[in-house]
């Protein structure tokens, strides 16, 4: 083997797979997004699919639902994860290991399994309403009310992912110097001040990282609405990911589904760019 060819030998298999199963599909679906099926053939119809999107009320609903879930769920989850991580980071706390494992445990469940589990627990006569009943709360229609169905998805996702993010923050906290906290204590700053003035700024790059990852995955949200609410009631939990799937594999409208997918691509690109700009360097 010639010396120059060696790296290509190692890279070759991955590159070949990447071209066939990522590059080709990405380009192909971009082309498909400008096409419509007419008499069994895909023909170019310019921006037709994209124009159709603007007038499609279900698409607009899916877009707003996805953003509502994103804007409410991601900050709540990341804030909770930060709080839990700070609490567990304290050397004085006993049973830290148990708390850490316990909080992380939801993250090992498969997305389908936990979505189904929540769909059973959140039934009108399910265990969650029973417990709320003990506290004097009236039965909540978790899955059949437009508002509560969104809350259900947000609750389930927060249960699944908070511990995961907490462990990321805990790992990053090991790199914050103890001296910063000691100095702040001497200056009379309480735990809450320390949290906002030391922990949060020190973890900024990690928080940005988790925010970007959560944003990208929420924009593609599929498993939860598919299994927990199936987009209902009347599209109240329809997400972009679910709508792409329905158009592609229930209505077999590949061109239109591809156009929606490319809207998601553009949103991901814009949001990641903004998040990086807003939070500055790194």
């Amino acid at each position: 083997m010639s010396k120059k060819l060696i790296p290509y030998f190692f890279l070759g298999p991955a590159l070949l797979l990447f071209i066939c199963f990522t590059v080709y599909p990405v380009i192909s679906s971009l082309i498909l997004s400008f096409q419509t099926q007419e008499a069994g053939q895909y023909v170019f119809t310019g921006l037709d699919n994209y124009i159709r999107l603007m007038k499609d009320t279900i698409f607009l609903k899916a877009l707003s639902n996805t953003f509502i879930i994103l804007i409410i769920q991601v900050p709540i989850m990341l804030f909770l994860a930060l709080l839990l991580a700070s609490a567990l980071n304290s050397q004085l706390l006993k049973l830290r290991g148990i708390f850490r494992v316990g909080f992380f445990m939801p993250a090992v469940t498969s997305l389908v399994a936990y979505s189904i589990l929540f769909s059973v627990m959140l039934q009108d006569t399910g265990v969650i309403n029973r417990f709320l009943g003990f506290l004097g709360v009236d039965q909540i229609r978790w899955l059949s009310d437009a508002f509560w169905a969104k809350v259900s998805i947000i609750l389930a996702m927060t249960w699944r992912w908070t511990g995961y993010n907490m462990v990321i923050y805990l790992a990053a906290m090991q790199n914050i110097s103890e001296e910063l906290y000691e100095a702040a204590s001497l200056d009379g700053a309480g735990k809450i001040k320390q949290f906002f003035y030391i922990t949060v700024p020190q973890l900024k790059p990690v928080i940005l990282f988790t925010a970007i990852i959560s944003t990208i995955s929420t924009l593609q949200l599929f498993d939860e609405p598919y299994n927990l609410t199936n987009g209902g009631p009347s599209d109240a939990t329809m997400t972009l990911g679910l709508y792409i799937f329905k158009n592609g594999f229930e209505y077999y409208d590949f061109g239109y589904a591809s156009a929606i997918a490319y809207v998601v691509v553009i949103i991901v690109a814009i949001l990641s760019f903004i998040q990086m700009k807003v939070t500055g360097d790194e």
Partner: protein
Amino acid sequence: MSNSLKQRKLTSKLVLYITLLAGLVISIFPFYWMFVGSTNHTSKMFTNPPTLTFGGQFLTNLTNLNDSIGIYRVLFNSLFVSLVYVLLALIVNTMAAYALSKFEFKGQKTIFMILIVSMMIPYQATMIPLFKLMANFNFLNTYFALIVPSLCLPFAIFLMRQNLLAFPTALIEAARIDGAGEIRIFLRIVLPSMKPALAATAIYLFMAQWNNFMWPLVATTSNDMYTFPVALSSLIGISIIDYGQVMTGITIATIPIIIFFLLLQKHFIAGMLGSSVK
């Protein structure tokens, strides 16, 4: 320290423990309730007050579950697909990471950049052409379709590359001078020192494939090729749902992973977060 200050500290500590304990209960309770549900009849899932004790229905539920989705077959599908995927993906991606970290060649930087950027592309943007491709070649409902398209995983390349960068290049050069072949160097010198990173990446890959739902849902249409998540999901798509079966199914899907997690906590967390154990 004054008494009132001491008392305040004690109270805040108590509040902290109670809050954490409440959080722990919220995290763990659904698991407990799932196990309980898997041992009870459907009707017990919705009683008032809720049923919180184990029943004797597990084997009945299991039998019913097997009648509806062929549990052993789909379990085998998922395990087979996940394990073969881990093995092949580990080879392909580690090789790529090795090329990108220990060699200098034309286009190296560009290729790495493209791989990194591609991680931000939503999966849905590739799914439809992938489906058409698999359909054209008659690969739907095959293990090939479930395993091969996602073999090149840029995140795994990124992970392995981070670890390989720390490997001393001088060792590789020394081996070359001694006349060792390139493949031999890779297998005998580089890989053995990458065990923790390989373990973490393997866990990451396994979890990704084991939990994968959308692609198997698209790529399989016959019951005997379903993966476990697809089969589970089909249970709740029907009009009369047997919740006993459903709970048994998700319990079986979850228990092995929990055991695996509790045994290998450190590696497991590292793998799922995409870092190697330090």
